[in-house]
């Protein structure tokens, strides 16, 4: 399909459940005020673990969004997705009816799905045998169930799927949804990422991989992207959802338009399971492809919501990738990692960070990187250290990179 035949796609609704707020407004307020969402783990006794801190979602009641039976048969990552999707649809004032249901789809990514369910059932299996395993184990656990249940709960009968590209999953979901609307396969998509993996096994595995911060005595300063004293990522949980809509469809119903999504770039390092290709070579290709896809020049970029995990390896390599693609312009823009406040939501991160990037475009404000007191010498861009900033944001990019070498960049542009 040539560019002229492709449809323009805009964002008409947003929703978020995060460690710093359980609505879009609370999340954005939290980002603007540099709120910290990290604390000592309450979900389980983590005293035997190397990392004992996380960005947990507080005060979320699934019953505000579904009845008790539906709650009981869904895992927390799916609760987040259902609730966030309903909030995003309400924000978009998009009603799903018999007339449009088949034209509205769902694309929600996740890294590990219902891993808590698997851990609980494994314990039952080992202690009491296979006959005591729940018939709901498989449907609750499987990663695609956030997308499946969101369709059941909203009535969206269109295209429905679930990328599982680790920490890139949420951004892949938004990009894939973009392609579906752009090419006429759906008029609107509920898309983003969700995660709830604050579980003993997850922490065991990531700790063994030496990926997590062990700043257990000082959790609020543990997620410190681009800082010289960073020592790993802090796991977060939550969900971010965008309503993507074909422009004419949005205009015909006088929908509020936050921004336009114009570019989707993806690549693979083809290098290492968990390591990053030197100088962020793969990430640079994703960035370049997103710009090309959106007919953008490097100088068009105003702001980048970085992957910025606060791991020793990610932050300088991502910085190098940005400089490779933007050249001198890299020093003229702002780059921030909102993971400094929310922690790293794995497959959910692309969702909430997509929301942040869109809000930056819509509001001409950029969120800060908190806890950045002494920049790593290899991280020499303007990371909006400490406090948010007013800035014209015509084009915002959102980066997400996942184990497996998956690199995704999304490009959002002011709608005009």
């Amino acid at each position, binding site marked *: 399909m040539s560019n002229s035949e492709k449809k323009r796609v805009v964002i008409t609704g947003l929703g978020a459940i995060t460690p710093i707020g359980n609505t879009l407004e609370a999340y954005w307020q939290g980002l603007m005020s540099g709120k910290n969402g990290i604390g000592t783990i309450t979900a389980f006794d983590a005293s035997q673990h190397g990392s004992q801190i996380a960005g947990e979602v507080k005060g979320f009641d699934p019953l505000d969004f579904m*009845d*008790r*039976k539906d709650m009981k*048969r869904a895992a927390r990552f799916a609760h987040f997705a259902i609730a966030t999707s309903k909030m995003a649809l309400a924000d978009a004032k998009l009603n799903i009816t018999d007339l449009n249901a088949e034209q509205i789809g769902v694309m929600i990514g996740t890294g590990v799905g219902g891993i808590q369910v698997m851990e609980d059932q494994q314990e039952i299996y080992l202690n009491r045998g296979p006959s005591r395993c*729940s*018939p*709901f184990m498989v*449907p609750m656990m499987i990663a695609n169930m956030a997308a499946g249940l969101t369709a059941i709960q909203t009535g969206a009968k269109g295209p429905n799927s679930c990328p599982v590209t680790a920490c890139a999953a949420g951004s892949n979901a938004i990009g894939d949804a973009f392609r579906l609307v752009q090419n006429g396969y759906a008029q609107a998509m509920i898309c983003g990422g969700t995660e709830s993996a604050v579980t003993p096994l997850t922490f065991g595995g990531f700790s063994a991989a030496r990926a997590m911060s062990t700043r257990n005595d000082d959790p609020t300063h543990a997620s410190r992207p681009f800082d010289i004293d960073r020592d790993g990522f802090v796991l977060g949980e939550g969900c971010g959802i965008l309503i993507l809509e074909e422009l004419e469809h949005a205009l015909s119903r006088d929908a509020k338009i936050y921004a336009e999504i114009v570019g989707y770039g993806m690549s693979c390092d083809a290098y290492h399971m968990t390591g990053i290709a030197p100088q962020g070579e793969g990430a640079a290709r994703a960035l370049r492809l997103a710009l090309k896809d959106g007919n953008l020049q490097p100088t068009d970029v105003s702001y980048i919501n970085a992957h910025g995990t606060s791991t020793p390896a990610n932050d300088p390599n991502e910085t190098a990738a940005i400089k490779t693609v933007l050249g001198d312009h890299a020093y003229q823009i702002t780059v921030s990692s909102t993971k400094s406040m929310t922690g790293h939501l794995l497959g959910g991160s692309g969702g909430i960070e997509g929301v942040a990037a869109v809000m930056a475009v819509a509001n001409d404000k950029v969120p800060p990187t908190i806890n950045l007191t002494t920049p790593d010498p290899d991280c020499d861009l303007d990371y909006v250290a400490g406090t948010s900033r007013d800035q014209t944001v015509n084009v915002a990019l959102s980066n997400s990179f996942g184990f497996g070498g998956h690199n995704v960049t999304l490009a959002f542009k002011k709608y005009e």
Partner: protein
Amino acid sequence: MSDDILGKVQKIVSEQLGVDEAEVKPEANFANDLGADSLDTVELVMALEEEFDIEIPDEAAENISTVQSAVDFIKAKAA
């Protein structure tokens, strides 16, 4: 004893299926009246096995479709 069994079954059914205990009448059919699907039914039978410390074979479970039939089965096992 029998009243106890009915009461316990009603409570379990109410909890498992997310319905009010008042709706869980003896003649209520799990699927038709209380909205249970096939997965709910399996889980319900497991919960009854736990509560009454009995084993309900699959063939028997197929015939347990109402609250009363569950009570009758449990009574017969206990007798």
